[in-house]
Each structure stands twice: as structure tokens, then as C-alpha cells.
């Protein structure tokens, strides 16, 4: 079981629109999360660069665009990014990053004079289902973990309304109406788990409102020990 930042490639026409006006581009894959899941790794960067070369010719009628592909181990690591690109960065007008939003911004911070554009949308923190190869959202990084009270099932990430006092009226036989009854109702899962543990008293407890300052962006962790939400400490 691993967790990755899940990304999804943007539609090609959107990317083409984004790079309009640039002549020398580097499609930069990330062999971290995006690569592990084969959405934004080296191979995908090569594939995207071929598509862009075709697109530049057919859509933008440009024959001379220079589009190359490369990848780094982790775009969210400044040192790795610097070492990989410092000698060649001058060859490009633009970097098209296939990493998550953190990767895009890391590259942009390391090379502030080169525009870095996102070729993917960053979706969620995914937990992998090894058997099916699917990725599921199980944690929203909300900043205030209550898994101890909810049988190890997170209602913030898994309830469509992130309710603290579910289930709501939108569940039928344990399935959620949001998304067409495909997802399990988190609160019915919680109910069943706590029943199994003989802890329904915990289920019945009224959970008071969150202090939303805890997850107020932008968030920082200083020196690896001091957390601050955007709303203060």
C-alpha cells in the first residue's frame, strides 16, 4: 500500500493553448508520485512531447518548435531539480511540468526566470488498491485527525459533505447519492465498524464543530516541528 499525489493530464487542446507563443519547450516528467502511477513520468513526458510536436504543426501551423522531454526523480526536491536542469535550462523558453502543483512550483522557485506551466491537474492524496490498481481518497489533510473516534474511517475525506454528525438523508442502503450510489456512505461504514468494535456509544456522541483555522491555507511546518495554519497558531 502506498500513497501518492494523484495527477491527471490536462486535455491536449488546453496544453496547446497554454504553450501558444513559445518556441522552445521542455516537457518535464516527475518520477515521484506522477511517475509511479504512470501519468506524469518519463515515458508520459515523451509521449506528450510527441503529441505537442504534432499539435504545433497541425493546430498552430508551426514547423520549427523545439519540444523535448526529460524527467527528474522528484520535482518537489529543489536539489534534484537544480542538478538535473541547471546546465540546460537556458535552452528553453518554457517548462511544461507533469508533476503535482508542488512540483510545478518547486521548479518555478529554482528557476525563477523561466515560466513553468502545469500539464496536469493535481487531484488528491491517493491510497492505492493494489488488486485493481485504483487510487482512492482517504485523507484530505484536514489538520485535525479524528480517526480514533470514527473506527479508522475518515468522514472528512469520504463523506461528500464531510459531515461530523452523519449519516445524512442522502444514503440508501449504505451508498451515497452523490455520484450515483457508487461510493459507500462513510458514516454507514463508521457505524458498522464501531458496532463491530462494540463502540456504538462513540457513534452516538455529538461531535462539536471544527475550528477551521486549523486547516486554513496557506499552511506551514517550520523546522519539521512547528505547524501553523494560515489562520494563526
Amino acid at each position: 500500500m502506498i500513497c501518492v499525489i494523484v495527477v491527471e493530464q490536462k486535455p491536449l487542446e488546453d496544453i496547446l493553448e497554454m504553450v501558444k507563443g513559445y518556441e522552445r519547450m521542455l516537457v518535464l516528467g516527475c518520477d515521484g508520485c506522477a511517475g509511479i502511477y504512470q501519468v506524469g513520468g518519463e515515458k508520459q513526458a515523451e509521449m506528450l512531447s510527441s503529441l505537442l510536436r504534432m499539435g504545433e504543426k497541425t493546430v498552430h501551423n508551426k514547423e520549427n518548435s523545439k519540444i523535448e522531454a526529460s524527467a527528474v526523480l522528484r520535482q518537489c526536491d529543489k536539489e534534484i531539480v537544480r542538478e538535473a536542469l541547471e546546465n540546460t535550462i537556458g535552452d528553453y523558453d518554457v517548462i511544461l511540468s507533469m508533476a503535482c502543483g508542488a512540483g510545478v512550483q518547486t521548479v518555478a522557485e529554482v528557476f525563477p526566470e523561466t515560466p513553468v506551466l502545469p500539464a496536469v491537474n493535481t487531484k488528491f492524496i491517493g491510497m492505492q488498491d493494489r488488486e485493481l490498481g485504483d487510487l482512492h481518497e482517504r485523507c484530505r489533510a484536514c489538520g485535525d485527525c479524528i480517526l480514533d473516534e470514527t473506527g479508522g474511517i475518515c468522514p472528512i475525506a469520504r463523506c461528500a459533505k464531510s459531515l461530523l454528525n452523519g449519516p445524512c438523508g442522502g444514503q440508501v442502503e449504505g451508498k451515497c447519492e452523490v455520484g450515483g450510489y457508487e461510493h459507500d456512505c462513510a458514516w454507514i461504514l463508521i457505524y458498522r465498524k464501531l458496532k463491530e468494535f462494540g463502540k456504538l456509544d462513540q457513534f452516538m456522541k455529538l461531535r462539536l464543530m471544527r475550528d477551521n483555522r486549523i486547516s486554513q491555507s496557506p499552511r506551514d511546518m517550520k523546522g519539521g516541528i512547528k505547524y501553523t495554519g494560515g489562520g494563526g497558531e
Partner: protein
Amino acid sequence: MEAYSNLMQAILDGEFVFTGELEPEKTTNLEELVEGAKPLVGYAVACNVTDNPQSMAYMSSLVASYIVQRDAGMETIYQLRCSDRNRLALTADILGAAALGLRNVLALTGDHVSLGDNPGAKSVYDLDSALLTYMIRKMVDEGVDLAGRPIHEPPKLHVGVAVNPNADPLEAEIMKLKRKEVAGADFAQTQVIYTMEKVDSLFDAYSQYDIKIPTLIGIFPMKNYGVADYFDKNIPGVSVPKELLETLKKASEITDKKKRKEKYMEINLDYFEAFVREIKKSDARGVHVMAVGYEEMVRELIARVRGKA
């Protein structure tokens, strides 16, 4: 306990109460709503005014509740959803409601906004129905907002909540209702049900969890077959009894408009008069008739149950 509203006074007096339902729509004109409320004065003790039902962006239930009370003389149960407002907006609306003379509020979590007519909207859910109940209780009883800040002249109103006897598993739903009772709900009204079996299983569960919230059973006389069929297919977890649906379908084949309408009335009155009489024998404290736009039916049903009671 002090009653601030006619609804609560009637419940405290041990009356078997009737409430109706009004639905403001995407309009600035409330004439139809007010006219729909007028025939129920003296029959229903109060009417619910829905708040963006099924997440449709409609006219404010706060304003509509006020206008119905002012122009129709009908007390309202002001429905308020957490889907669209954070705790500041909810506080503001409760203070506003009290200033306008509204005396009952129904605290709802609210359908998910992605299922409504503006599906790309941001859903809020800063609070849920239990926490909204908790907040209103604090405002009314302690005279403070959710953060404990004092309110100059606190509001005086009653908080109702919803409960769904159709929920499966029912135990989870009942435990949720228990939280709302702990939070301080004054009354509850149920999702639509059609059979005594559901009424009985609900109150059995109440006694198992020692729940004492006065509860009104939700019923839904159906104006025509189309309404019944839509309801049967689209409301999660609720189905219209097959026999009743068939009878309504047959009635829909009557070509004469007046006769068809009369037949629908007859079918509904037959079914629901008997049902309400049975409900009266249970622990229910009344009936919430959710027949929007069918006031002649609601009025007749109430008259019959009362007349022969």
C-alpha cells in the same frame, strides 16, 4: 418549558397537530404561496417553508416565511439548510428570522448542492443539522452565538429536526436523532412514510434509545399520478405502496378533468384518512402533510380526521 410558537404550544397542550408545506420557487412573486397558505389557516397550525429544496436555487425561505406569516396569517416553520451557509450566515439568518417574528426553524443539513440546479456551486456544511440545532439552542437559551459572544436581545424560537424512518440501517439514523435530541431539538418531523409498520418501528426505536422528541409523521397525498411516480422513482429510500400507485395510475386514465381530479381526491382521502387515524393511536404528536400545492386536499383531510375523531 415556555412555548414561543403556536406549534409548540399545541404540542405542549397535547393536541394532535397538523402542519403543511409551502415551496417558494425561482420567482420574486409569492402570491401563489400566500394564496396556498390561506385555506389552511385554522386547519394546519403551521406550515413549513422549504429552503432550496433538492438544492434548487429558489427564493429565500426566510423572506417567504415572513411574507406568509404577514399576508396569510399562517405561522411558519422556517426551513434552514447548512449546505449553503457557514456559521456566520446561519447566525445572521436566525437573528433576522427572530426579528421578523418567525418562531419555528427546521434545522437541516440539506441535500448536496451537486444534485441541484447549480451543480457547480461550492457546498458549505460548516455545520450539520445537529450542530445547527446546538447553535440555535445556545442562541436561545444562553443568549450567545456559537463562539460564545453575547447576543443583545437573544432570539426566541423553537428548533425542529428531520428524521428518516425509511433509513436503512435504521439504528444509525436513530442514533443521529439522539445526537439532535442531546443538542436540544424541540420537535421532529419525519421523511414521508406510508405504512404503520414504519411508524411503529420508528417509535420502537425511540423507546430503545429513550428518545422523547415530540414527532410529527410526514405524509404525502399525491395530487396526480405523475407526482406519485416521480416521488416513487426519485426520492432516495422512499417508495409509494404499489397498490396505491396502481390506483392512482388508473385514475390518471380518466379523461374528464373534473372527474379525474375528484377521483384523485377520493383515493387520497381514503388512504390518508385511515392512515392518519392509525397514526393518532401511536406515539406521534401530529402529522406533517407535505402536499405542496394541494391545499384543498390537506384542508379536507384535516377536517375529516378532526370531524370524526
